[in-house]
């Protein structure tokens, strides 16, 4: 049905019939007028059409002869006004049409147009009424879905969302309304939002966005999503807010899509306009398209007026992720603001929050890099002091205390009025304390405590605690004790209180006030049984009681160190063992170690336990049980390649086979056991037994047999079956024979494969020595540190100390080297060449410091007291001579060189040649004369 067909096909005939009865002249006028209007309407010239039909109506409205034709005229007139968007006139004409022809065949269309016109005029109430009338009266009307959709739009315009929702739900789901479904989806979300039905709005929003159900309405949806997110956030529904925010697109993307849509709408409208046959539906569609276009343009303008849309959205997104604890995602959103919108007004805040977020995530290097970028870009920003603080603090959190100290010093200089100055100063002194710069830390913390402005600082408690700790760790236990006690009185509820109580106990112990230590530590263990220091406290209490001689109570204290305490349990058992040993209670000692072996059968420490078990049996005179305990230990654990401690057992075992018969019996059993274990493929155990036989033969003067055994040892036991002890056995042989190249790979294998073994210390020491000799000081330092960490026996520890001192000397730290050499001299356990080596080292260090006066007596002590070490003696003579020369004491120098050259034992050393050269240089002759007196 078209407008032309309606008017031309039906009305024109009616008009012609009516006019046949009228006067000729009038008829001609009416006909012409009508035809003009009709032609104009057909041609789309609605002005002329409206004018013609209006004139017709004015002339003939009340003409009885025209009664039949007038409804058609008013219909055409209404259409013309409607198309000219003269809606009031259109409504009037349509109303007149319906009044004159209540059963008009165009009634549905006219009502629809009247409703549209009222909607355009902003009279939504009347529009709704008309749409309702239309839908009730003409349920199958072709434009019914559009009518229902427009009715919903009118309801929304009246803010009557309750009625809008069912209309939109109908449009969304009705098959006839497929084209409007997307728009209905978008408007529904808006309705739910306005009605406060946030969850329904959210589920619809997510469904629509994910399903791409309203691709043409991205701006509407984007703005609704942002608003919905804000509502949900205010309701503390952060997850919901996140879902809503994540339905938002970036402004650029929305604009791009919206422009595509506008272009499409324009193309459609243009195509409709170009069609010659302008039916009312087409005109209506054109109107709708123009309306949509205008709406899209308006939305584009709205977006253009929101330059901070993206940043506002990203900040909301970031805040929300932060609030739900998803900091990685929060960082991503903050970083998007920083990187993509550097001109935004929010970029400073976003960047600052990014730094804080990264620091909170403990991504310290990244946080620092961002902090540096922030401070470079916005040095005057309000957040700058805080960001600088976070940067400094990050070093502290990374335990890079030196860098933290430097950064905090810089911070305090750059921001003298820093709002967190109290905390920054505290951190500075904390960083010093944690670097063991106790003097600076102590002075700094004292200054802090005296600063009146910090009296009410939130850091005051931390400062009080750390001040006491600085005193404690710097060895000033007396003052530490006073501060710790005062702290506990002032801050009994502080989180530091348990630790402080423990430290009080420990300070008492270190001050040898064992009774007070025991009392304090028992308080601690009773009050804080779950404290991380509980095992240490129980151990220390046992030690305090043992020191008081209260061995029975000490044993009970040690017994509190249960197996779950790990290393403390082993220590506790060893200490209880010592107590029983002191009490000569070997029976209990046997019971103790039997239980111990049963409790930790898979621990390498059990070997030591077995040793003490056998030892205790021996004290009880039960030699058989002692022997069997040892053999049992060897059989059960001796093939454990990674374990150690068998040397002690094997040595003690030899003592249990006294006399020549015993030696033979043991040798026989060792040989038998070696055969048995080799046959069983237990080569590690066999190697250990073979080593025991070697040492036994050595001790009993059967050197040839021992050497033969050592010679075949390497071939019988490949390195992959040898434990650290076996490898060390082979390596020592090579080392002693000067086959360093053979020894080094074995030491390296020990270092690599036996990280937990104390035997690793010797291997690392040798590797350090080799590295130092070839000038690889860094490598040497690494091995030395490993040796120091692994060592458990005193002789090796002393040798490591010597090596450490020599290493320090090598890197130019002469004073530190002297201190280390003196440690060796102070130790009575240092035997053999260690003392002369230490003396020589000290002398060399003083020489390095050009303090020749102090160097000479150390050299002299070597050749006076340790002449049994000719190589060192030769060196001592020569270097003392050099020192005399440097002091310009030429005669003394000559005397030293002569003494060296007079000793025939020293002739073989290169120092003798040097001395001869120096002597010739000083005296002009190489004649040896006895000096007038030695220097």
């Amino acid at each position, binding site marked *: 049905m078209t407008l032309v067909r309606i008017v031309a096909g039906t009305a024109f005939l009616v008009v012609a019939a009516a006019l046949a009865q009228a006067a000729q002249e009038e008829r001609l006028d009416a006909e012409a007028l009508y035809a003009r209007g009709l032609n104009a309407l057909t041609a789309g010239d609605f002005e002329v059409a409206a004018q013609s039909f209006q004139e017709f109506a004015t002339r003939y409205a009340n003409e009885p002869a025209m009664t039949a034709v007038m409804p058609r005229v008013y219909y055409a007139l209404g259409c013309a006004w409607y198309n000219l968007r003269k809606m009031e006139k259109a409504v009037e004409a349509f109303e007149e049409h319906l009044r004159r022809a209540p059963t008009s065949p165009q009634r549905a269309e006219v009502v629809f147009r009247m409703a549209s016109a009222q909607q355009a005029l902003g009279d939504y109430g009347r529009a709704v009424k008309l749409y309702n009338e239309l839908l009730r009266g003409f349920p199958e009307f072709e434009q019914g879905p559009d009518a229902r959709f427009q009715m919903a739009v009118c309801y929304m315009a009246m803010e009557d969302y309750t009625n809008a929702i069912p209309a939109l739900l109908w449009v969304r789901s009705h098959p006839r309304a497929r084209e409007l479904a997307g728009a209905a989806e978008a408007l529904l979300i808006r309705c739910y939002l306005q009605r406060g039905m946030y969850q329904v709005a959210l589920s619809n929003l997510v469904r629509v966005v994910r399903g791409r159900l309203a691709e043409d309405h991205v701006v509407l949806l984007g703005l609704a999503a942002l608003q919905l997110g804000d509502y949900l956030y205010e309701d503390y529904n952060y997850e919901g807010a996140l879902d809503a925010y994540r339905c938002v697109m970036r402004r650029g*993307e929305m604009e791009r899509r919206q422009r595509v849509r506008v272009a499409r709408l324009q193309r459609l409208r243009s195509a409709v306009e170009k069609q010659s046959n302008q039916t009312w539906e087409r005109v209506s569609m054109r109107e709708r398209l123009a309306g949509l276009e205008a709406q899209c343009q308006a939305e584009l303008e709205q977006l253009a007026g929101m330059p901070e849309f993206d940043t506002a959205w990203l900040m909301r997104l970031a805040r929300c992720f932060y609030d739900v604890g998803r*900091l990685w995602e929060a*960082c*991503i959103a903050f*970083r998007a603001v920083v990187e993509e919108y550097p001109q935004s007004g929010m970029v400073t805040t976003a960047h600052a929050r990014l730094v804080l977020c990264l620091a909170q995530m403990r991504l310290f290097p990244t946080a620092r890099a961002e902090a540096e970028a922030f401070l470079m870009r916005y040095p005057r920003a309000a957040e700058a002091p805080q960001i600088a603080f976070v940067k400094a603090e990050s070093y502290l959190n990374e335990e890079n205390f030196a860098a933290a100290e430097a950064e905090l010093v810089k911070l305090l200089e750059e921001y003298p009025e820093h709002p967190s100055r109290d905390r920054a100063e505290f951190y500075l002194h904390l960083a010093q304390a944690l670097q063991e710069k106790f003097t600076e830390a102590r002075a700094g913390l004292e200054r802090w405590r005296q600063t009146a402005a910090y009296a009410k600082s939130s850091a005051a408690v931390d400062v009080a605690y750390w001040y006491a700790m600085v005193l404690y760790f710097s060895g000033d236990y007396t003052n530490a004790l006073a501060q710790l006690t005062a702290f506990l009185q002032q801050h009994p509820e502080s989180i530091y209180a348990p630790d402080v109580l423990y430290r009080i106990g420990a300070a008492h112990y270190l001050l040898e006030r064992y009774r007070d230590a025991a009392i304090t530590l028992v308080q601690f263990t009773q009050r804080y049984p779950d404290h991380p220091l509980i095992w240490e406290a129980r151990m220390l209490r046992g030690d305090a009681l043992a020191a008081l001689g209260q061995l029975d109570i000490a044993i009970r204290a040690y017994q509190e160190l249960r197996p779950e305490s790990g290393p403390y349990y082993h220590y506790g058992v060893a200490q209880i063992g010592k107590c029983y040993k002191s009490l000569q209670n070997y029976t209990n000692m046997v019971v103790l170690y039997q239980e111990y072996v049963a409790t930790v059968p898979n621990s390498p420490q059990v070997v030591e336990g077995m040793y003490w078990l056998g030892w205790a049996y021996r004290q009880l005179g039960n030699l058989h049980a002692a022997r069997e305990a040892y053999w049992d230990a060897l059989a059960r654990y001796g093939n454990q390649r990674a374990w150690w401690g068998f040397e002690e057992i094997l040595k003690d075992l030899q003592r249990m086979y006294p006399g020549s018969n015993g030696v033979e019996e043991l040798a026989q059993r060792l040989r038998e056991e070696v055969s048995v274990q080799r046959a069983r493929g237990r080569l590690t155990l066999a190697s250990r037994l073979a080593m025991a036989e070697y040492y036994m033969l050595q001790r009993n003067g059967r050197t040839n047999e021992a050497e033969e055994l050592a010679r075949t040892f390497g071939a019988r036991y490949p390195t992959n079956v040898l434990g650290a002890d076996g490898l060390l056995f082979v390596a020592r042989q090579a080392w002693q024979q000067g086959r360093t190249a053979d020894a080094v790979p074995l030491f390296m294998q020990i270092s690599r494969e036996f990280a937990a073994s104390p035997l690793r210390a010797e291997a690392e020491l040798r590797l350090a020595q080799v590295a130092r000799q070839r000038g690889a000081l860094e490598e040497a330092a690494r091995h030395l540190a490993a040796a120091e960490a692994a060592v458990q026996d005193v002789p090796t520890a002393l040798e490591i100390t010597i090596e450490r001192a020599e290493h320090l000397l090598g890197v130019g730290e002469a004073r530190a080297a002297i201190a280390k050499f003196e440690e060796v001299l102070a130790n009575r356990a240092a035997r053999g060449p260690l003392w002369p080596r230490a003396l020589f080292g000290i002398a060399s260090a003083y020489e390095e410091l050009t303090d020749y006066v102090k160097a000479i007596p150390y050299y002299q002590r070597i050749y006076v007291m340790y002449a049994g070490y000719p190589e060192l003696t030769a060196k001592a003579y020569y270097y003392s001579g050099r020192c005399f020369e440097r002091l310009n004491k030429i005669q003394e120098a000559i005397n030293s060189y002569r003494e060296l050259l007079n000793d025939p034992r020293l002739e073989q050393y290169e120092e003798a040649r040097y001395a001869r050269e120096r002597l010739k240089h000083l005296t002009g002759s190489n004649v040896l004369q006895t000096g007038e007196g030695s220097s």
Partner: protein
Amino acid sequence: MKAHLRLVLLWAVSALAAAAQLLPMAIRLHLKDGRKLDCVLVQRTAEGILVERRVGTTRAREPHRLEQIDAIQFPLPSILTSINVRALRDKQALEEAVQAVEQQYTAWQAFADIRGNHLPGLLRLYGALLERQKAYGTAARMYEQLQRIAVDEPTRLHATKRLAVCTFWTSTNGAALVALTNFVATAEDDAERAEFLFYAGVSYAQRGEHVAALFTLLKNPVFYSMHGAWEPRSLTAALASFAALERREEFITTCATLTQRFERTVWAAIAQDRLHALTCGTNLTALASITNYLAEEP
């Protein structure tokens, strides 16, 4: 030499035989002399083609040598529009589609030397189907060929991108990372960007760069949650890096997100499984292998 000739001959025979299934085919023939002929292609010969066309009231057959032909407008193979790779429901449908495309591809190879053939479209479809079959090595070969024969830049770029994806799936050391990262920056739309973010993120994880992996993978939950399954896939992959970094709290939070937001999916199942393992005392670092987090919805 003889053997080579025999091979060439064999190829020619088999290709020509395969081409027969496409014939006869209505074409528009563009000759180098400027003529355009609407005709029916009836045979592919070793020298060129044989067409049949109406001359006056009769139909005549005429041969055209290759060197005379500028291009041919072939009809679009229906297979290119009838197969929707994403919509294939099951393994059998996928296999049938692969076979069909394979046949077409083989047949069209007979026209590889004629401009206007549909080999690029077929290769593109073939590659996509092979990817869906997880036959990434074969798919990579198809894309390499597509790169070689593509006549336009978008097709070449598409081939390059999919080749990077295939490299991603066939390597375990993040070999395609650089290419994938570039594609994130030059992606055509958000869905493609989300896909490449996932691959790039996993590549970082494969290289042990877990912080970069997380900052890449987690862009998907932040910005592209509405684009398919990339959010749960990325969150699942992120679990590996959280485990490697011993980020227990984040690991648990992400598992919870997966189980709550993506209920009854393979990713929720993975998260549930890992949470269970963690609760039973499994060490977090033992859950750090990225290969255990790359499951896709069946």
